[in-house]
């Protein structure tokens, strides 16, 4: 016999000013199953919760409905509340009469009250069909994987390792370090990027709890929170890591040449290479695309082999192959970072054809002491020092038509930083910055921007650049000064574009491998924009750094630390509680059609063979099997299932139809 208690919350004036709460409580008093009904100003307050618990005891209630805010807000609160009074926490339902009613129907009090009554009746009908559910348990593998070895990944791994847990860093390129290793100076302090990064790289490589897996890719992720099974492809390095001492002799005579991507193709590197002098691990790889030996092998020949002849340790191994291996992890942190937007889509900036129109990251390499020009700021075309430099902000950012709709957040500051660096290196050089807005929220950021203008004499022009074209040796930059309302033309020797940040080009594929969400631009989606900034919708997978959205170094480091805390909280448990609100399959109804298998976004469903006795014979047939630890209770399988065999616990077909019936009765 159902004995439902109904509690209508005023939420102060949030609900009470629109919905007549007393009338709602009164009107459901005699609704089938209801044993008690009342209203109160703040149901979530301590007296409110006591009121519920007392009513449970006094009226011998076995089910409870609270009509108040969104379950996202207080479902946990009330579940705990009824559990304290001795009920199973799943014998509780919430009717959302705030977000779904009073807030959206303000001023239409009569209709809002009617709607609130309907919503409450639906909740009562549902709760009458609720069943007692118990949370499950799963063990935890006490090891974490950090995907991406940039500053976010390194920091996150260090924080996890320092908490005493094992952690692996998976890095696609031959060295950890990421974008920060390419940057010369950091804002707003102008301290050397490498000087603050390399100690962290060294710490990560020598930490007893950290294992570096470089030159490797994420191939496959199976399993679930606490028990991920990750397949990793270790790419053929052509160098035996156990033998190589990192002496660098092999690189001295290599005749193969390729564009040096670390230096933004501003110079060439050898085919056997380490990306930069402080690389970790400081052991080279052979880029098979540009290696003479591998190129000649494609033509059926076998030439060169200089590096193998030179190597004193005999570490060169041309026969190495990619290797796949599987590791188990309890948690995964995605820290795959960003890439720079390609400005060559913009015709007004010359479609990337002009050598002296460069991007911000190009400039970082130009001004770096170990870069292609030993830190001298010169034009790529003729290696002359520029006397006039024009900088253009928002290249690809805030441009929904051709680029990205979002603000890349870092460009205003890195442009200001680069402008001051030009003025420092070349005091006679004029610097102009074209901007739409200057956005410098951040500690000491606006002060830095003001110094750029006032002390360094950088001229800021509010307006867009309409065209850049080569005019003899100089670049003619045409634009608009929208503050003065006039067109301007500047003869520049070099133009630096503040290119937008975009996700790693592979981010969408990575998200699909790991099973997390991403937005229209490819940034990974956090579980809540305000209250879950490092979590994802997939339990056990966390986000750190710019893979979630444009971020500067301080924000990336902060988020990496936050992700590490979440990982440690997870790994500190011996067992994990699992939600019982998952799908189950009624084998009697399941035809084994398998439609639910590809529909499941969490790869929780597989087909299994069962034995049955039919008409005296034992037959084998296939049915869908749901892994309750993987299932997130989304319900996709239940709507796909043609025979109605799949049913989501706590949201069963019977419960949903009871709600529909309750609603239709009032309409009819």
């Amino acid at each position: 016999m159902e004995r439902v208690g109904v509690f209508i919350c005023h939420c102060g004036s949030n609900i009470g000013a629109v919905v007549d709460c007393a009338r709602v409580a009164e009107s459901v008093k005699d609704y089938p199953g209801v044993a008690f009904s009342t209203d109160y100003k703040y149901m979530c307050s301590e007296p409110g919760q006591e009121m519920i618990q007392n009513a449970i005891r006094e009226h011998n209630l076995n089910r409870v409905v609270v009509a108040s805010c969104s379950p996202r807000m207080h479902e946990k609160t009330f579940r705990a509340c009824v559990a304290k009074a001795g009920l199973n926490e799943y014998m509780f339902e919430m009717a959302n009469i705030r977000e779904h009613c009073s807030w959206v129907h303000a001023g239409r009090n009569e209709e809002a009250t009617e709607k609130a009554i309907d919503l409450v009746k639906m909740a009562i009908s549902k709760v009458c069909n609720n069943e007692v559910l118990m949370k499950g348990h799963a063990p935890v593998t006490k090891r974490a994987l950090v995907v991406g070895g940039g500053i976010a990944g390194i920091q996150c791994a260090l924080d996890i390792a320092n908490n005493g847990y094992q952690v692996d860093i998976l890095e696609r390129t031959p060295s950890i370090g990421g974008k920060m290793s390419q940057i010369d100076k950091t804002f707003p302090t102008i301290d050397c990027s490498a000087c603050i990064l390399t100690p962290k790289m060294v710490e990560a490589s020598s930490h007893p709890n950290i294992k570096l897996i470089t030159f490797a890719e994420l191939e496959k992720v199976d399993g679930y929170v606490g028990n991920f099974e990750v397949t990793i492809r270790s790419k053929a390095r052509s160098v035996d890591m156990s033998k190589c001492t990192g002496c660098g002799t092999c690189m001295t005579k290599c005749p193969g040449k390729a564009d040096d991507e670390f230096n933004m193709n501003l110079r060439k590197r050898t085919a056997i290479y380490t990306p930069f002098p402080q690389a970790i691990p400081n052991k080279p790889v052979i880029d098979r695309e540009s290696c003479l030996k591998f190129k000649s092998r494609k033509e059926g020949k076998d030439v060169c082999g200089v590096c193998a002849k030179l190597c004193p340790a005999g570490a060169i191994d041309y026969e190495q192959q990619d290797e796949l291996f599987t590791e188990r992890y309890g948690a995964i942190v995605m820290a795959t970072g960003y890439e720079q937007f390609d400005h060559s889509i913009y015709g007004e900036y010359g479609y990337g054809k002009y050598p002296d129109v460069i991007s911000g990251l190009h400039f970082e390499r130009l001004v770096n002491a170990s870069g292609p020009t030993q830190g001298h700021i010169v034009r790529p075309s003729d290696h002359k020092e520029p006397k006039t430099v024009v900088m253009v902000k928002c290249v690809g950012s805030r441009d929904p038509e051709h680029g990205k709709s979002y603000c890349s957040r870092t460009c205003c500051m890195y442009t200001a930083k680069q402008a001051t660096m030009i003025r420092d290196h070349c005091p006679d050089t004029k610097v102009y910055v074209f901007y739409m807005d200057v956005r410098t929220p951040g500690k000491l950021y606006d002060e830095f921007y003001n110094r750029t203008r006032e002390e360094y004499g950088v001229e800021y022009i509010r307006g867009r650049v309409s065209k850049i074209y080569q005019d003899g040796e100089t670049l003619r930059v045409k634009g608009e000064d929208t503050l003065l309302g006039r067109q301007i033309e500047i003869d520049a020797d070099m133009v630096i574009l503040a290119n937008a940040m975009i996700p790693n080009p592979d981010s969408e594929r990575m998200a699909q491998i790991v099973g997390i969400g991403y937005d229209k631009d490819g940034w990974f989606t956090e579980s809540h924009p305000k209250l879950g900034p490092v979590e994802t919708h997939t339990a056990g997978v966390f986000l750190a750094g710019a893979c979630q959205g444009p971020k500067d170094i301080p924000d990336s480091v902060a988020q990496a630390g936050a992700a590490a805390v979440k990982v440690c909280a997870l790994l500190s448990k011996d067992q994990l509680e699992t939600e019982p609100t998952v799908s189950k399959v009624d084998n009697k109804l399941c035809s084994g059609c398998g439609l639910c298998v590809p529909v499941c976004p969490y790869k929780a469903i597989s087909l299994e063979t069962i034995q049955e006795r039919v008409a005296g014979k034992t037959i084998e047939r296939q049915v869908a099997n749901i892994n309750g630890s993987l299932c997130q209770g989304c319900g996709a399988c239940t709507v796909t299932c043609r025979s109605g065999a799949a049913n989501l616990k706590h949201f069963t077909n019977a419960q949903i139809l009871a709600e529909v019936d309750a609603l239709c009765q009032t309409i009819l």
Partner: protein
Amino acid sequence: MDYAYFPGCSLESTGIEFHMSAKAVTKALGINLIEIPDWNCCGASSAHTRGHWISLALPARNMAIAEAAKLDVAIPCAACYARSKQVEVEVSQSAETRAKIEEIIGRPYKGESKARNLTDILYRDLGVDKIAAKVVRPLDGLNVLTYYGCLMTRPPELACDDVEDPVSLDEIMKALGANVLQWGFKTECCGGSLTACRPKVGLDMTQKILDAAIKAGADCIVTACPMCHSNLDMRQAQLAKHDHNYHMPVFFITEMIGLALGMKQKDLGVDRHFIATEEVMCKLEEYEQEQIQKMMNEGGEA
């Protein structure tokens, strides 16, 4: 290759060379142009300042006649092209616009007949290989600048080529053997009709383009717009009055093709320019002689 042909008013007056050369060249290249019977002015440069519907209805009538014959329309003039394309796009995107236009012009027009720029037809439909195959007198040694003006590529939704860096004229000129120079003025505005109503503003714009052409070291400018042609060709005399002396011949793309195809200057209208084209002709002649001399010398040595 059959197309309806809309010459427009310019090609019967200031841009008659374009008309003559377009007809001669298309014939030689196997493109069949059928002039739209009883065509009317497309209203370019003036109608759209008077009213939206008249600016659409004027070109719509021509397009409707072509559509009845199930032909796309070849339009040499960039301004006529832009106006005709505008109505084609608007009618094909909105049933309401279509109904209103059909009511005004008193005949059906669904927007199925497409407005096509003649240069685009030569570049895309015919292809530069077919043009190159017919070249008998390559323009080798000639330094040319291509000039598209604003109407071939703007607004972007009507553009028949890349908006910021169009290439059709470049590719055709290369196929003819010319040396195509690079400059930043391909799509700058020549001043259009401003040279008539606000001469100071318009002439300044024309002057900037001519200055840049001289700086780039061009022998001549090649265009596909009669308005650009008259501004650049005709206004040089006016600029001379202000002590800006130029001698920069300006050709239509079809004149250049005609010359490379071995046609007579007179048949192409090249003799009708304000700025004499002799120097360009002489340069071609000289280059040819040089090459012949070279070949003979080499032959002698062998």
